């Protein structure tokens, strides 16, 4: 501790910028980790909180995917002897249409029984109506809102509130206001209670409920009640405590969570690199100090502990700052995360608070300290190995011996062979990811050798342009490969990651566009929401005929989509008129005969599944797919596998007739509208809007708008690639500044001698600039090469574990062509300050090193 105060603290005070950089490295990693996870958890917490608060005294909930189920199921549940109270529920999210107020969660309940499960705790109410459920029932425009919502919107008892319904804008009357607390905090307070039968009508839900909330008899254990209800209802229903629905959200967001973890890991890696580099420099600069300490009796262990102690202290400070910045980041990002989850998964939530998780914060501190110590481990080890004799003799430095390089090369060769062998060893997750890890370790071990080889290769070219400066710059790299290899390695890994992720982004664009062209080819889409993935409102099937009668419309297809549970995970069920669709849609077929698969599916005797569903669940053509429905187990042979981007976790297409039969649901989410050749889209859109203006809430989205919407979501999803490119550039700048600082410290005497014998300042400057650009070029070359391998692994990871999508290997040349000049420019810019510092240092002092 005393050494930390005497030695480390003094060094930190003297090198404030470098110390801040070290702390910033940790803060960067921790901030991204905390920020992204907190934003994500805040949205998830809002989901969880809403589920919890709405659950009230509910012990079990019965549901059957998003499609809901027929009203008669309620009678079956209520008839079970284990059940004490069972009430139906519909949840729907609507836009308030008021600036800054976002969405409103409408909870449709049956007032006759619901209050035995949920306490509305009314502070003011139209007593007669609220107290008598039958009167409430008779007033379908009745709404109960929370006190917060009422205050924010200036609502009082009997105020009128306009909401967009399936039948157009409707006026509702506030008949009760709930006191703040418990239930009213659900959905950030934007909650309204409405009669369930009114909700069915307003949202086009037919005679369906979303779920049933229930309590069991006094002496009935949860497990017994659960088992009894499962027997009564069959496999098409989930019977779970409210926490079971929370698990469903988590499962839907699986891919998003994995992506989040990758980004966090990338940020932590960058943070580790910065710390490593800072400590490596510190060891170089403090070699004399270490030598003195060793000469005075400090053991290697004491030196190692001194540096590790410093790194732990920096880790603690960096983690504290990182947590603070992370929370700020989360505050900014939570809205965006919520929006993205809504757009991609159709999960709407109102997260207006940051959910701080003490475990996450503790983990962040642990990660900060541990990663800091891990990053400082090698420099601390080098510090402990400093030779006191050489250290106290000015102007000398230790270099990596040839023997060590040879050993590294041999280990790298063995690891590369093992990695190649792992590719041939099947689908095991451990073998696959182990192979990837071995490849990276092999590349890292080979970096000093490859950097040396490349430096020798480019030496003649550099010398050709600038005989003295070019040779000196290349020689600096050749003489001390270890000095450069850390930066080259970090640059290489960053670029490899950018190429891998950027490559997947690009590889997915073309198939996505192909899919949009071949499958999303109607001229327009008529939807009940602005958002294609929102399934709150539904149209009646009869609307199709009405649409087809509008002049200019040639052909209309009705689509019903609902997220269901398949093998414990979410899957998007698409019920369409297969016969009609097959005439217009030409999806890319992965397996199966195109004509036969549509014919079989249209006849209700088969199912067409998406490529990613097949990949993620190891399904193949001809296999029988079993899907639990409210009417029992639906068994259909897989008639075909096609490329479909409808859902990240897979989709399956069945005929609408099958959907209607097994879910007893003929509602429609989207109408796909094809126009006559001579029709003008804009005019037809106006006609549709005019035709339904007073009857229906609907939106008409032109093909181009839908395509742009999907591309915008995709860009948002892949937005992190651009962040990673920025981080790669940051790595380049920091790494090269640090490397040059060490290089200049090491070569102070050499640079002094050059100046003493007549070297001009500009020559020194050019030498350092060229050294920087050479490091950038070497790192870029190796990064682009490792990127080719990284892309292969990233594509495989995407296919086998993330989205199940199989994309063609295509090296992202435009990304490579864009990033290399950026890296070289960053390298040059990062050399400006070190070069000026080198030429402005005291010549006498530099020569004293002699």
């Amino acid at each position, binding site marked *: 501790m005393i050494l930390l105060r005497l030695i480390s603290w003094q060094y930190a005070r003297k090198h404030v910028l470098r110390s801040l950089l070290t702390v910033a490295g940790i803060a960067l990693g921790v901030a991204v980790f905390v920020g992204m996870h907190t934003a994500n958890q805040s949205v998830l917490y809002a989901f969880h909180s809403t589920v919890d608060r709405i659950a009230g005294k509910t012990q079990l909930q019965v549901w059957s995917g998003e499609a809901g189920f027929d009203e008669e199921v309620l009678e079956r549940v209520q008839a079970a002897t284990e059940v004490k109270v069972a009430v139906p529920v519909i949840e729907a999210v609507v836009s308030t249409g008021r600036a800054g107020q976002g969405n409103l969660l409408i909870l449709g309940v049956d007032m006759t029984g619901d209050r035995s499960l949920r306490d509305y705790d009314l502070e003011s109410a139209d007593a007669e109506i609220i107290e008598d459920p039958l009167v409430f029932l008779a007033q379908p425009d009745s709404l109960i809102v929370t006190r917060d919502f009422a205050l924010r919107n200036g609502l009082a008892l009997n105020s009128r509130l306009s909401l967009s319904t399936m039948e157009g804008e409707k006026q509702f009357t506030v008949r009760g206001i709930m006191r703040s607390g418990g239930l009213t905090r659900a959905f950030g307070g934007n909650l309204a209670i409405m009669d369930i039968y009114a909700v069915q009508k307003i949202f086009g839900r037919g005679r369906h409920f979303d779920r049933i909330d229930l309590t069991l008899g006094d002496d009935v254990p949860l497990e017994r009640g659960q088992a009894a209800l499962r027997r009564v209802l069959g496999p098409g229903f989930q019977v779970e405590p409210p926490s079971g629905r929370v698990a469903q959200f988590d499962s839907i967001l699986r891919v998003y969570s994995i992506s989040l973890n990758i980004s966090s890991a990338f940020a932590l890696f960058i943070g580790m690199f910065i710390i490593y580099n800072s400590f490596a420099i510190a060891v170089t600069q403090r070699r004399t100090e270490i030598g003195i300490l060793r000469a005075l*009796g400090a053991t290697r262990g004491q030196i190692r502990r001194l540096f590790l102690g410093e790194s732990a202290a920096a880790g603690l400070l960096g983690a504290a700052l990182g947590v603070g910045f992370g929370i700020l980041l989360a505050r900014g990002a939570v809205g965006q995360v919520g929006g993205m989850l809504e757009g991609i998964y159709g999960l709407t939530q109102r997260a207006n608070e940051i959910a701080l998780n003490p475990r996450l914060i503790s983990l962040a501190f642990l990660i900060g300290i541990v990663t800091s110590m891990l990053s400082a481990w090698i420099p601390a080890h080098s510090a402990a190995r400093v030779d006191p004799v050489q250290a*106290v003799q000015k102007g000398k430095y230790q270099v990596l011996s040839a023997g060590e390089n040879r050993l590294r090369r041999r280990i790298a060769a063995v690891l590369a062979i093992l990695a190649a062998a792992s590719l041939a060893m099947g689908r095991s997750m451990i073998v696959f990811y182990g192979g990837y890890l071995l490849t990276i370790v092999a590349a890292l071990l080979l970096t000093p050798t490859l950097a040396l080889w490349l430096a020798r290769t480019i030496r003649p070219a550099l010398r050709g342009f600038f005989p003295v400066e070019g040779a000196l710059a290349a020689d600096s790299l050749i003489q001390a490969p270890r000095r450069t290899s850390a930066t080259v390695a970090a640059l290489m890994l960053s670029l490899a990651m950018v190429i891998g992720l950027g490559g997947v982004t690009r590889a997915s664009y073309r198939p996505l566009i192909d899919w949009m062209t071949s499958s999303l080819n109607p001229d327009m889409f008529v939807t009940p929401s602005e958002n294609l993935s929102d399934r709150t409102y539904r149209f009646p099937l009869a609307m199709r005929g009405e649409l087809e009668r509008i002049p200019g419309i040639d052909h209309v297809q009705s689509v019903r989509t609902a997220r269901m549970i398949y093998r414990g995970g979410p899957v998007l069920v698409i019920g369409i008129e297969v016969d009609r669709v097959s005439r217009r849609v030409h999806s890319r077929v992965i397996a199966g005969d195109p004509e036969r698969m549509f014919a079989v599916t249209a006849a209700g005797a088969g199912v067409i599944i998406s490529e990613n569903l097949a990949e993620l669940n190891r399904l193949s053509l001809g296999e029988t797919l079993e899907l639990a429905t409210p009417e029992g187990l639906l068994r259909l042979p897989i008639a075909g596998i096609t490329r479909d981007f409808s859902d990240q976790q897979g989709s399956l297409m069945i005929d609408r007739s099958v959907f209607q039969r097994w879910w007893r649901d003929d509602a429609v989410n989207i109408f796909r509208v094809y126009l006559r050749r001579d029709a003008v889209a804009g005019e037809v859109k106006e006609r549709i809007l005019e035709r339904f203006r007073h009857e229906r809430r609907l939106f008409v989205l032109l093909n181009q708008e839908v395509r742009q919407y999907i591309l915008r979501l995709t860009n948002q999803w892949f937005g992190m690639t651009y962040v990673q490119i920025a981080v790669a550039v940051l790595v380049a700048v920091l790494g090269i500044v640090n490397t040059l600082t060490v290089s200049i410290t090491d070569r102070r005497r050499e640079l002094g001698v050059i100046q003493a014998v007549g070297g001009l300042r500009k020559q020194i400057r050019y030498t350092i600039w060229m050294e920087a650009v050479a490091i950038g070029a070497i790192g870029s070359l190796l990064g682009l090469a490792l990127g080719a391998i990284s892309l292969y692994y990233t594509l495989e990871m995407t296919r086998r574990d993330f989205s199940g999508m199989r994309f063609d290997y295509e090296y992202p040349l435009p990304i490579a062509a864009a990033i290399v000049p950026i890296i070289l420019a960053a390298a040059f810019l990062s050399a400006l300050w070190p070069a000026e510092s080198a030429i402005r240092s005291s010549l006498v002092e530099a020569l004293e090193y002699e």
Partner: protein
Amino acid sequence: MIQLTQVTKQFDGKRRVTALEEVSLGVDRGEMAAIVGPSGSGKSTLLNLIGGLDRPSSGEVRIDGSLLSGLSDDGLTRVRRDKIGFIFQFFNLLPTLTCVENVSLPLHLRGWARQKTEERSRELLELVGLGHRLEHLPEELSGGERQRVAIARALAVYPPILLADEPTGNLDTHTGQEILKLVHDLHDRLGATILIVTHDAGVAQSCQRTVTLRDGRIVEDHRR
């Protein structure tokens, strides 16, 4: 106290360089000897081997009966810590620490209590005549004063052996003589074994014994 037997030290680089060749030397307890010779004759290498900073390629180095070549790195460090004090030509003080802190450093490395460390450091700085400069930083001191701090630091645990590499080499004549006088004074008062590597004939003549090295070999060993 110090016994070197057939010690050879070679450095492997692009070409192998022999810094010391089969050197044998014994130094008695309390003796004060100068090691002289031209540049590259192996003086500093000899001092580094005796100080346990380096290991011989062959031969034996014994300090107070302990064979250094048989010790681990930590073992060598303990020998340095307990038995040897170093005085360098360029002082090698830590620039960010005050005089007291510089002197207390070896004691902290031994895990001494803070109060005891401070008392000893003040006592040593008084001994070298710097009682009035306790809280000064090295950059605030003259060359001679810096070397006095370095000597106080070398004496921190009153080691039986003091090794000085050109202790006056970076000082003017007058200051050099003062430092030499201080070293003699300490030798008389503390009775330590002192080896001084020097180019300065005056320094060498002031010692009881002068060992002359040339091309890695002892060519003369003169006792007065």
